[in-house]
């Protein structure tokens, strides 16, 4: 590993430690919800990272179809996988918060349902990648990735019309929304820390995929050279 990567991983760990300290010990306890509100410091940043990953996946897929560079495909796989992991965390932390606050684990509200549909779309993307054969995988996967991302705003619009229960956006949501400055502090640190965690994961997965591609190419070349002898 290059020293720069190691430095970035150490930085990420330090950030994660500091932001956890901020979220669990420094940030004030919420008046009505109590300590369970602190899950927000993990829930919202992971949702952001998941969204970011899916966006990167979309861009990488377009870039792949355009230039047909295997590296772009590797980036697409890496970001989709990490995005699904973070999206899963969002879907798990949400109900943990909702149970004490709403009294129910799950409700078919706009944001919850959209996130679930988003998760379903990208899981189907990963399934396709697993079952597609040979060199077609990348093109087929890129097509599905574009479909998936284009679908997201339509899903959100349709389900929003369907029903809404999720608390309206706390940040820039409306007149009565807004965080206490101390909460802002903890939230932003977590946002930065988790974004770095996402970058580290995607970078690691990207490297792994590139190695896999290299290995496959080498095997193919060896097989070809073997058959000509």
């Amino acid at each position, binding site marked *: 590993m290059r020293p720069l990567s190691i430095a970035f991983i150490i930085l990420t760990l330090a950030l994660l430690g500091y932001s956890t300290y901020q979220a669990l010990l420094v940030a004030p306890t919420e008046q009505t919800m109590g300590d369970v509100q602190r899950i927000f410091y993990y829930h919202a940043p992971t949702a952001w990272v998941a969204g970011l990953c899916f966006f990167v996946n979309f861009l990488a897929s377009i870039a792949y*179809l355009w230039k047909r560079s295997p590296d772009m495909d590797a980036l697409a796989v890496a970001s989709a996988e990490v995005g699904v992991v973070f999206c899963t965390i969002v879907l798990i932390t949400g109900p943990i918060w909702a149970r004490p606050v709403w009294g129910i684990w799950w409700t078919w509200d706009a944001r919850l349902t959209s996130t679930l549909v988003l998760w379903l779309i990208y899981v189907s993307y990963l399934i*396709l990648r697993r079952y597609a054969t040979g060199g077609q995988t990348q*093109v087929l996967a890129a*097509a599905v990735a574009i479909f998936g991302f284009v679908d997201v705003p339509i899903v959100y619009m349709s389900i929003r019309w369907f029903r809404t229960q999720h608390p309206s956006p706390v940040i820039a949501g409306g007149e009565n929304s807004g965080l206490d400055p101390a909460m802002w502090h903890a939230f932003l640190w977590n946002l930065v820390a988790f974004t770095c965690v996402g970058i580290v994961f995607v970078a690691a997965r990207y490297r792994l995929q590139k190695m896999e591609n290299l290995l496959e190419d080498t095997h193919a070349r060896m097989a070809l050279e073997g058959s000509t002898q």
Partner: protein
Amino acid sequence: MSIKVMRATLLKDLRMEWRSKDAINSMLFFSLLVVVIFSFAFNPTAEQSRLIAGGLIWVAFLFAAVVALNQTWARELSNQVLDAYRVSPAPANALFLAKVLGNFLFVIVLEGLMAPLFVVFYQLRSVGPVWQLILIALFGTWALVVNGTFFAALSIRTRNREIMLPLILFPISIPALLAMVDSTTAILTGESVPDFWIKLLAVYDVVFTSVCLLLFESVLNAE
């Protein structure tokens, strides 16, 4: 040339279907089974069935459409027809549109034949404007079929062909399905206005038809 290729492919598909009746028979029988099984599973009264009919009808048609969609490209694989198509100078989108139109016609015919059965079995009576149901059927069927034809072309390249299509098609189709079900229920119960859903379906159709046309050539030539 596009129009010629399209017409030739479409006519060929229609003629094959007219002679074999493979797609329409399996779709008809399949959706009939869904109607019967749902009726046993929920045992609804007339009032309840009016509330759930929108969901029932579209789930039945969605499942049935998958049956036809899975056949649409599979028949081009024998004798390497698809490969021949790829080396020919005919535009890929003409082939795609012909396939979509063919499937669209099959599913619309299915809906026309099945609609009376639904009315009889579930004692349906429309409270809202019926002509909007036709609009929903046209837009909704196009939404299912355009994406379905695209993903069918994609899933014949995978190891588990028949299973792959619904796995990709259903998640992407959720907003369209929601719009179809909710607008149909709105008309059947007369409790709300389906205008928003019809507009959403129109937007969905335009957006995904464009995406399909943009990407189909890459998928057809994927190697």
